[in-house]
């Protein structure tokens, strides 16, 4: 029984990381209707920035802020420089650009920071209570709740958040009432980058830092976004946690840990077949 509880709670903790990355995907999807394949790699690169700063004896909090800021700016820049010219481009061009970004960011990280695995500190080790969860895991839960609360507040209670929701639903009408749509697209890419970077910093102490650290997590985040419905923030979080628990339970009792990615693939395809819009997604009229 204790074993089962342990698996479930670890699953929820992993699920939080998936949920945050999935949330980043959803933010980008809602504003531009693109699925950013390179989100995880961008998060990985930002995490390296934090690792370098921490290695230079900068306090964790400062390194954290610098990393989030870097991720925000780089996300916004990618939107401005690479994505905006492709606003009405065919899907192949968009997918190609994301794949190119994926490969470039990963290789650049290898080139600049090297391919050896590094450890990454966790600021939450003191939170360990000797219970089911270790200190870092408690920290992940708290951070996720914090990020979710902050994002909900931002989208619900600020004018900027309202404007962003308007752009997500009706870009043209928003432009007509005077919202600067292109600025907000940059902003949403920046927010996605920042949330992704937080997920990266939370994941790094567990999976260790190397240029490939996000590829597995990214597939689970995709699956989470699809399970929850790619245009639903609530769905991303629920989907992430569901998948985290599913992954851990199936890994422990069903198929072993060697087939983790295959499980994500199966979950993704199953949901897409049975309920293509996901658990919380809005149904689109186009079906062929």
């Amino acid at each position, binding site marked *: 029984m204790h074993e089962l509880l342990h698996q479930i709670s670890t699953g929820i903790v992993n699920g939080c990381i998936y949920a945050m990355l999935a949330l980043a995907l959803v933010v980008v999807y809602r504003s531009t209707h693109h699925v950013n394949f390179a989100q995880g790699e961008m998060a990985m690169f930002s995490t390296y920035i934090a690792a370098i700063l921490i290695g230079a004896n900068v306090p964790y909090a400062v390194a954290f802020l610098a990393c989030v800021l870097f991720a925000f700016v780089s996300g916004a820049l990618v939107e401005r420089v690479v994505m905006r010219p492709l606003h009405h481009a065919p899907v192949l061009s*968009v997918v190609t*650009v994301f794949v*190119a970004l994926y490969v470039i960011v*990963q*290789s650049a990280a290898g080139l600049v920071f090297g391919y050896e695995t590094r450890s990454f500190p966790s600021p939450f080790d003191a939170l360990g209570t000797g219970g089911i969860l270790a200190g870092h895991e408690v920290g992940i839960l708290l951070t996720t709740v914090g990020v979710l609360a902050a994002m909900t507040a931002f989208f619900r209670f600020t004018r900027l958040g309202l404007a962003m929701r308007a752009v997500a639903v009706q870009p043209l009408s928003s432009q007509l009432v005077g919202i600067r749509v292109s600025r907000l697209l940059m902003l949403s890419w920046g927010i996605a980058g920042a949330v992704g970077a937080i997920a990266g910093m939370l994941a790094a102490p567990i999976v260790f830092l190397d240029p490939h650290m996000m590829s597995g997590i990214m597939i689970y985040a995709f699956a989470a976004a699809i399970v929850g419905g790619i245009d639903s923030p609530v769905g991303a979080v629920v989907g992430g946690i569901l998948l985290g628990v599913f992954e851990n339970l199936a890994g422990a009792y069903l198929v072993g840990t060697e*087939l983790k990615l295959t499980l994500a693939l199966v979950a993704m395809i199953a949901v897409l077949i049975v309920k293509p819009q996901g658990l919380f997604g809005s149904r689109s009229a186009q079906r062929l």
Partner: protein
Amino acid sequence: MSDFLSQVSRRRASPGGLAEPTRLPWRGILLALLLLGMAWVVVYYVRGYVAFQFALVVAYAVALMGVQFLIGSSGQISLGHGAFFAIGAYTAAMLIDRGWAPYWLTIPAAGVVGFVAGGLFGMPAVRLSGPYLALATFALALALPQVLKHPALEGVTGGVAGISIETPAPPYGLPLDADQWMLLVVSACALLIYAMVRRLLRGPTGIALRALRDHPAAALAAGVPVRQWRARAFATSAGIVGMAGAMNALLTHFVSPDGFTVLLSLGLVAGVVVGGTGHAIGSLIGALFLVFVPNVAEEVSKAATGLVYGALMLGCVFLAPNGLAGLLSWCTDKLRSKDTLR
């Protein structure tokens, strides 16, 4: 696109739309002569490692033809065709390893297995469109090495170590070395596959695929069962890529899970984008790119291959949306139109 171009050039040859007088099939004769000449060059001048590398180019060109068929003709994007490449390669290696089939039979066998695998994966997956299909296939590419390594399948796939196979020797004591012989075999297969794909695209299949690529709703209204055709296109392209995988296994004498990483799948898409989706020659250009760019880039650093891939893909999207082949035909069109105008 190439069909269209050839039609245009034919129309130019007969002004006023007059019926062309029957002539000798010059293009066919020229092509045959060219092929014979190339075979002669191979036999006398290209041997050993060079022959091996050119054979690899041909194998990758076939793989790119398969992906091009999917992306260019039916408009579906797969980031996971490396998985079908791997399935083809493993099929060939297992058939030879167990002595179930002679080496030349493994290529069509891998095609059949790839076709079936592509059909099984494609039937549910083609309900997805655009980025969703790309995502699902991307997950397939990431997941397959894990499945191949799985202990439960170790008896079949050879686990992490993979399978080594013997080099096929040239028959009847032909005065060729093994690499030369394989280059000839692989090239002949590639030509056959090219002829089949061309035939397919010029017939009703091609029309149906182009219709559903350009306007799925209109295609459906015109009586093209869109999902079925998408699944067929997916399976066909998987079959072609599977044959390429078998060629690759025959050439390298070795398959292992780590030979079929995500970078292979992404490379296949990169090759198609760089070569161009609409031109047959594009797959050859893409294959040259896939075989020789990593060779050069690896000498600079481990990361350089990825950087070059990525940079070229970005460059192509922004500067040459139809790939290098598109750029080439655009240039020749410009030159030609200058000639005719003056």
